[in-house]
């Protein structure tokens, strides 16, 4: 029987993540140094794991409030106030979710009518466009450029805007580019959003991993808290990817709408993860600082080496990704990544996995040990030397 005919049309046409194809190839190979990973190489700090174990021992195995544990929501409000400068009420303006991925999904489901247009900067995280498509919205990508260090500019936003745009999704610092916006750039984006009456979904999962200049949340700018849903989580800063825990903060009516979708689909985030998250917020600060300093040193090394090799790379101000151009090799990003994997057993992700205008770039994650990074760069150098077209 052809079971395909049962699948919804908009899912049939949904492309598979380019990362998945690449993963299939890498998974079959041995001794690969992978810079293709999108998560910290640190294991969750022990005090957080221990808090979760204790919670289990204490029999914390039940549902929580749909919004999440009130203690955790209070801690989130305090943390967000201290670090980002926005004030939210734990009772109605915070929703604890199963990672930022769920927060983003339910935000879109709660906000998008079929045909509504959703803007997002590109290259971007793999799920953005598909999540919009799944809610029968129309994605409107806004390109970011290497020349701007992959910051989103108001000019690009303005050029891509079309009637019917309702939402703007931001991910600053950005996976995969490591680009982010200065306060000035954000101010211009904010003015544009107010002018065009756009609501902002701001995914700031990498904000603690901002190396220079400090992180500014668009929600903290004048007039923006009322039109921003601030999305954050624990995966990157606290090395808690597998815990699947995040949160959304925003105007009460919007959080209430998201909560309706959340309560009928997820009910609540895992209580164990919520307990771990609470510990992370209360006592995790030092660990975050330590990890950020290490990422920064690794970034400095990797980006310097890439540029020496000829893989032109801007200095990413945040995240743990470098996003170099592979133009020097004369190859496109897919052939470059595949060739590098086969010849030197180093995995990087082709930029087009993150949208069409990632063409010509690859994403290399520097959340790996120094030994691996040093060796990977040596191999990449050998590979690029072999590919360089001879000078005429």
């Amino acid at each position, binding site marked *: 029987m052809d079971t395909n005919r049962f699948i919804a049309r908009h899912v049939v046409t949904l492309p598979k*993540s380019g*990362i998945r194809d*690449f*993963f299939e190839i*890498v*998974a079959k190979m041995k001794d*690969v140094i*992978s810079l*293709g*990973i*999108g*998560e910290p*190489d640190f*294991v969750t700090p022990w005090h957080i794991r221990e808090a979760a174990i204790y919670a289990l021992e204490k029999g914390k195995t039940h549902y929580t409030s749909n919004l999440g544990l009130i203690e955790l929501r209070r801690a989130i409000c305090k943390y967000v106030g201290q670090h980002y400068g926005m004030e939210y009420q734990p009772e109605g303006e915070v929703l604890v979710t199963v990672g930022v991925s769920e927060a983003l999904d339910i935000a879109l489901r709660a906000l998008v009518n079929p045909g509504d247009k959703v803007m997002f900067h590109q290259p971007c*995280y*793999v*799920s953005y466009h598909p999540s919009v498509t799944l809610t029968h919205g129309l994605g409107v990508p806004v390109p970011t450029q290497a020349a701007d260090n992959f910051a989103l500019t108001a000019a690009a936003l303005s050029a891509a805007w079309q009637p019917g745009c309702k939402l703007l999704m931001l991910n600053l610092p950005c*996976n995969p580019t490591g680009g982010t916006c200065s306060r000035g750039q954000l101010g211009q984006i904010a003015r544009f959003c107010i002018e065009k009456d756009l609501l902002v979904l701001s995914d700031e999962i990498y904000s603690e991993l901002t190396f220079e200049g400090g992180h500014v949340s668009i929600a903290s700018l004048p007039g923006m808290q009322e039109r921003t849903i601030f999305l954050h989580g624990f995966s990157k800063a606290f090395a808690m990817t597998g815990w699947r825990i995040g949160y959304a903060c925003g105007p009460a009516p919007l959080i209430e709408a998201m909560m309706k979708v959340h309560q009928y689909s997820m009910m609540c985030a895992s209580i164990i993860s919520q307990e771990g998250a609470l510990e992370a917020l209360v006592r995790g600060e030092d660990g975050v600082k330590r990890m950020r300093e*290490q990422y920064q*040193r690794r970034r*400095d*090394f990797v980006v*310097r*080496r890439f540029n020496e090799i000829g893989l032109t790379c801007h200095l990413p101000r945040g995240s743990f990704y470098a996003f170099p151009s592979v133009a020097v090799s004369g190859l496109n990003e897919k052939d470059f990544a595949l060739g590098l994997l086969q010849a030197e057993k180093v*995995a990087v*992700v082709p930029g087009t*996995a993150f949208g069409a205008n990632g063409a010509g770039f690859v994403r290399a994650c520097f959340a790996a*040990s*120094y*030994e691996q*990074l*040093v060796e990977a*760069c040596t191999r990449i150098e050998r590979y690029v030397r072999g590919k360089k077209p001879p000078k005429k």
Partner: protein
Amino acid sequence: MNPVLKLLLEGGSLSTAQMAQVLNLTEAKVNRHLEQLKKERILLGWRPVLNLSKEGASAVRAVIEVRITPERGGGFNRFAERISRFDEVESCYLMSGGYDLLVFATGSSLQKVAAFVSEKLSTIEGVLSTSTHFLLRSYKEQGFLMDVPTEENGRLTVTP
């Protein structure tokens, strides 16, 4: 903080050549930094961290609480330095509380450590008493867990 020192603390066992690459220094410069650290007595030396319960590295270790009479002029230091010089003594600390010095001593057998305590340590003039505790088992040594297998971090090779 000295960049080389920072890397030593977080970088595991990088060779000087690898350190030079990471820090964008010449290998000679890294060596100079190391020399400087040694000269300033910040970096005291290198030692492997061993699991003493394994055959091949096995040793008997004792923790000894020592009470001493401080001397006029020298305080505890002269005694502490004198005690520290014995090969058997791995570490020696001045403590607050019920005793004065805490001494970590090792030897190839229980008898050897016992002999050190009874013949050397307790006979030093000024030592009022010693209280020796033998270590039975080690769970963590200088930041390394003993019998717990290294945590597989189990990261997938490519993820979004």
